[in-house]
């Protein structure tokens, strides 16, 4: 904005603050609930001041888990393995397929690209039944492979890398050819370093995507020790006879938020560096 008007500043800040409260308040309540006893949480209205049972609740969550769930540590581990495999797998596969589609002239190249592109229209939820059948037939139920593999194929990431590769000048490819770099060397020495920032961005997005998966893990895991944390939290909200231990559940939720938050914060540094460090 060119003009500076005090009331405009005020309005902008007001909107931002309201937005922040809307986002942050539930998080705050979650945290408060995780520091109180089950009884205190159940009171209406619930106190909005931190309680005195924080350490106790978190220890319970980590060691034994709330009602109807395994300890948080195991679930976090399962989620972490799943999210990492999905993020890394997606990046590996899509960067290689984008490389093939952009830099190699082979029969059916356009066809391949469009086939990848069309899968955008088929997210997991749409193809969930046949995918389940395939995974079950391959005896991959209750396994890390079963959790991650079907989610790895990614048209979005392929498309993103393709768009990036198209912006790399042809002369660079030719210079590399004259320097004697074969296709693999060119990919490894030139394309990969140039894609660093795209890779970082995709990693963050895909890690969170993997971490937040709910429907698919719910379907293919039947053993408690293979539940990722999102499924685990849902199971802690007990049905039937058990009473939900809201304080433990909330502690688990807070713990579940830490890894993705860490990934965002750590990778953000990379991002910003990448953005400032524009290499072109």
């Amino acid at each position: 904005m060119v003009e500076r008007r005090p009331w405009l500043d005020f309005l902008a800040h007001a909107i931002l603050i309201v937005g922040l409260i809307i986002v942050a308040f539930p998080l705050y309540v979650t945290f408060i609930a995780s520091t109180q006893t089950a009884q205190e949480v159940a009171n209406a209205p619930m106190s909005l001041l931190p309680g005195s049972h924080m350490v106790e609740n978190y220890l319970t969550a980590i060691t034994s888990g709330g009602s109807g769930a395994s300890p948080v540590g195991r679930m976090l581990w399962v989620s972490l393995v799943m999210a990492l495999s999905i993020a890394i797998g997606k990046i590996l596969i899509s960067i290689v397929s984008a490389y093939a589609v952009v830099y190699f002239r082979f029969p059916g190249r356009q066809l391949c690209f469009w086939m990848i592109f069309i899968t955008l229209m088929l997210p997991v939820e749409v193809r969930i039944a046949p995918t389940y059948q395939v995974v079950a037939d391959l005896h991959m139920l209750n396994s890390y492979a079963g959790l991650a593999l079907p989610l790895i194929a990614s048209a979005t990431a392929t498309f993103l890398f393709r768009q990036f590769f198209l912006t790399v000048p042809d002369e660079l490819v030719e210079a590399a050819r004259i320097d004697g770099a074969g296709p693999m060397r060119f990919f490894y020495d030139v394309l990969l370093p140039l894609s660093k920032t795209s890779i970082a961005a995709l990693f963050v997005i895909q890690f969170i995507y993997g971490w937040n998966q709910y429907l698919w893990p719910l379907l293919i895991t039947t053993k408690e020790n293979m539940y990722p944390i999102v499924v685990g939290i849902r199971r802690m909200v007990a049905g039937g006879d058990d009473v939900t231990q809201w304080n433990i559940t909330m502690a688990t939720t807070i713990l579940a938020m830490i890894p993705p938050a860490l990934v965002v914060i750590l990778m953000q540094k990379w991002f910003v560096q990448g953005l400032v460090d524009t290499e072109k």
Partner: protein
Amino acid sequence: MATLSFKNVKKTYAGNIAVIHGIDMEIADGEFIVIVGPSGCGKSTLMRMVAGLEAITSGEIQIDGATVNDLEPADRDIAMVFQNYALYPHMSVFDNMAYGLKLRKLPKEEIKKRVGDAAEILELSKLLDRRPRALSGGQRQRVAMGRAIVREPKVFLFDEPLSNLDAKLRVAMRLEILKLHRRLRTTSLYVTHDQVEAMTLAHRMIVMNQGVPEQIGTPVEVFEKPASVFVASFIGSPPMNLIQVKVAGDGTMQTLEGSLPLDIPPTDVPPSVRGRKVILGLRPEYMILNTRGLSAEIEMIETLGSEQLVHCRYGHDQMIVRCTTRQLTEAPLQPGSRLDIGPDGRHPMHWFEIDSGKRVANL
């Protein structure tokens, strides 16, 4: 150090679009050859065929007598400097120059020495740790040349290397390239659309037009004896004046359009053009004012500094005469007035066939 030869080299793209119609040429060891022509004439394609970046449709390209048609660019022992430099953005200047050598598995010391030497020649020694983006255009261009030098190739290829630089830097880099070539004596092929670059750098130049080499010769030959109307109008600034004329059997002339008289001494008109319709070519720098010839109307005067260009109209024909500024300050000219202009009589006139545009043979 190598020779380079083209044997009836042709290039046709899919759909039978011919872009190069057959080139034959022998380039001697250490020669600096400039390919010049308007955009789309196939000059870059020709160079890219030498580099191995474009397939050769038919014919042969030989480096040092060995046919390289089917060799990968890396195996042809050439080095190329690109128009937009094509430096690896994520590598330091040193790594940019060393990359090709690393891939050839040269020993580390050797790489260091070669890059160091090249950096010395190109005055890049202090910049070796920088990334390309931290360099100015001229420095990037030098890195690109450094990358070519360290390879110690048989042939250097330059693809319009100076066209991304500003005018002043271009002149400076032109001289640097000239010095560099004098020092390394590597056979070089240089593509440009800038005739001044071509004239100053070339030992011999190839003037290309629509995939055909119109003329191959030294800059002086090309300037003094253009082989066709195209070469005549392309080389030289301002371009040669070309007038279509009817020559009578006795050597008197009229313009073809408008039938205006041209008073040129019949002794200067060679017998081979008498009684024919031809194109007469007169260089603006070899024309003088206030002489016998034709009486043209002054349209405008363009000031270049020490020289001025007088644009004239004679019936349907446009003409330019180049004068010194001093000459015009002594006798000022007014646009709209008439002026007697003609050849200076000391330099030969040029005659071209109307149909083919070729220079009239056997003058």
